[in-house]
């Protein structure tokens, strides 16, 4: 066993890496990268729940790319290292533990696999390189006001007109689209087919005439998401990826690819570190929550849930590595992982009590200049708590995941 690994949060990765030296080397590489090259100012913003700007994200993405890690999950012929999902999982958990901001997945993890799997050579040439270099900021245009969980009912219409599609409609909940250069969308190209068969996968330039973006302020006071209005936007036909009418199957391919990585163990561990800090604070009267039996148990309960989630992730990833695709069983990771993140942030705000009520107003959408306006002692934990209420809603709500499991795994 690795002599320096004595933390509770290292046990599972230790056990995994002890049996797999290549994995251990990857973990060590990522750890030293985080120690040496992860910008302290970005880490501090993440750990204090401060607003992160577009530049912060791109700066960190490019450092990871220079180190060969940003798109390492792509196949070698497209500039990646052909990582397995287990390798990607180890990488993500290590950086999130270290305080990395969310690696914005829209370009590198959602769009790129669709392009290199279903796109033509010209599309691969045009989109993959700039995406890896973070020269293009992508948004995901899937949800609509009347197509949330029921995604197959998208109504945004794309009508062929010579060498263009003319696109009209509305997308919503579009994360970070206020910064986007491009948006990959599901659009309806055929009304007569079954709903799933009339959908196409189209790339839209956000700077085109007819595109307007309205940021939506969410309950945490931030602007992560937007409404996109598309008013007769002319999109060149070469921006259609794959076959017309194939969009639904590409979107499903993408979801299947990603579900195994859904459990945010690294983030959970970082949040636990934060909770430990809150519990160690000396309260008026001199007591500390970390000395209180019920608080120690409450915290240990969360710790046991993280270890269980981690072991479950390794099991399902291991099955995938061994060629036995766990299929819909992977929905479990989304359910359990999102509920755990919510439980940890709920525990954080309980630990802070009224100390935690102060929030930083004025972190307005896209306004990176707004700095730290929290009074001393304010942690922003309540902002994270509010934001994480979305974890059980986005990417297929918990109810949808349970429907999937009931049908596909239990056969009900």
């Amino acid at each position, binding site marked *: *066993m690795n002599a320096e690994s*004595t933390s*509770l949060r290292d*046990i*599972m990765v*230790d*056990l995994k890496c*002890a049996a797999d030296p290549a994995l251990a080397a990857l973990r060590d590489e990522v750890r030293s990268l985080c120690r040496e090259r992860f910008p302290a100012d970005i880490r501090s913003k993440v750990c204090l729940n401060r607003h992160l700007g577009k530049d912060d994200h791109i700066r960190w993405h490019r450092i990871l790319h220079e180190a060969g890690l940003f798109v390492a999950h792509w196949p070698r012929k497209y500039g990646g290292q052909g990582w397995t999902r287990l390798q990607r999982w180890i990488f993500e958990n290590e950086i999130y533990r270290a305080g990395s901001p969310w690696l914005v997945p829209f370009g590198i993890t959602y769009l790129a696999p669709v392009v290199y799997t279903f796109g033509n050579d010209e599309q691969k040439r045009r989109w993959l390189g700039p995406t890896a270099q973070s020269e293009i900021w992508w948004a995901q245009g899937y949800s609509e006001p009347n197509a949330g969980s029921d995604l197959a009912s998208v109504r945004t219409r794309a009508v062929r007109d010579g060498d263009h599609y003319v696109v009209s409609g509305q997308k919503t909940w579009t994360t970070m689209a206020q910064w986007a250069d491009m948006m990959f969308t599901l659009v309806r190209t055929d009304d007569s087919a079954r709903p799933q068969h009339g959908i196409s996968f189209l790339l839209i330039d956000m700077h085109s005439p007819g595109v307007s973006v309205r940021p939506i302020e969410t309950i945490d006071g931030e602007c992560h998401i937007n409404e996109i209005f598309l008013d007769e936007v002319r999109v060149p036909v070469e921006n259609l990826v794959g076959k017309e009418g194939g969009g639904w199957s590409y979107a499903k391919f993408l979801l299947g690819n990603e579900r195994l990585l859904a459990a945010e163990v690294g983030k959970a561990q970082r949040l636990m570190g934060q909770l*430990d800090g809150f519990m160690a604070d000396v309260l008026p009267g001199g007591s500390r929550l970390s000395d209180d*039996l019920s608080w*120690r*148990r409450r*915290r*240990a*309960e969360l*710790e*046991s*849930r993280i*270890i*269980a*989630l*981690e*072991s*479950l992730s*390794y*099991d399902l990833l291991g099955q995938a590595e061994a060629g036995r695709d766990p299929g819909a*069983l992977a929905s*479990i990771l989304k*359910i*359990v992982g999102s509920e755990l993140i919510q439980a940890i942030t709920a525990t954080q705000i309980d630990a802070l009590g009224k100390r935690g009520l102060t929030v930083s107003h004025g972190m307005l959408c896209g306004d990176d200049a707004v700095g730290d306006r929290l009074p001393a002692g304010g942690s922003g934990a309540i902002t994270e708590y509010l934001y994480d209420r979305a974890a059980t809603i986005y990417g297929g709500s918990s*109810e949808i995941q*349970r*429907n999937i*499991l*009931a049908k596909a*795994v*239990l*056969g*009900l």
Partner: protein
Amino acid sequence: MTGAAIFSADERDSFTRSVDRFVEERYDFDRQREIAASADGFGHAEWRNMADLGWMALPLPENAGGLGGGVQETAIVMAGIGRGLLLEPYLATVILAGGLIAACATGPARSDLLSAIAAGEAFWAFADTDGEDPVLASSEGDGWRIGGTKTLVLHGHNADHLIVSASTGDGTGLFMVDATAPRVIRRRFEMVDGRGVAEIGFDAAPAIRLGDGDAGTAIAAVHDRAAVASCAEAVGAMAALNAMTLEYARTRQQFGVAIGSFQALQHKLVDMAVAETEARSVATAAAEALDAGHPLASMVVSAAKIRINRAGRFVGESAIQLHGGIGMTNELPAGHYFKRLLAIGSLFGDCDMHLDRLASAA
């Protein structure tokens, strides 16, 4: 115990199939009820079968008639025990007593005792929980005598031999006692799941010390292995209980449709499957951590036992609820699985004990 996993993937699969076959063919619910009602509360013929199948030898050291298997292998047996609600004293004899003897005994006695266990010829129990009078040991000439009471001794009512933990005035020692000796007074009780436990009084009973020095470490280690074994047992029980609840939901008709077509029930059934799946993963992780000798393996054991205790309670209660009225009857297996899960939840560390241990590591 040697403590490393010994099976290849193929051997693991074939051993699992053999355990499954035994449970399926020799231990259906009617037979289980019959054995539960028998005088000893376990099946002697079944016990011999288990020995023939290598279950007893599996975790015992190779130099004493065993196969030297790890916790990961014992877990296969224990999952079968949970799936069929087996009643034989495997945990008490092989994992607890066998584990303590392997860790503490020396000389020819060690291999004699363990060989007898491996052959299925000995019944042991581990008397660890003090009753009203804590058990004290005092040396007398070349030997020892112990006095005091132990309680909740799993299978202690019909074991032939006991290992008793006792205070020596210089720490905790382990002592072997003839359970049938006149100065050993046993009262049988039944746990909620029907398994027998004993309250045992020792009236200056002659005892043979097992090893020397403080036995605290050996006891803690065997408790960890028993906790993980119980986790595997619970996972087996949850799997069986979930399968029967799912089958019931698929077939039970109300309002002209199967009740499993209702979303409220579907989501409950999914949550039960999620609990079982997560429990299986974390139980396996705990077994791997122990077998790998990780310095913090005990913490994974605690994490596993907390999750399994919670999952067992949730799956058990939900299964009764989804079965409705029929779930309340002792005629149906569901309630018996629930009661085994309840018992496991309090044995080898309940949630609070393991939460406190996990909290101490942070």
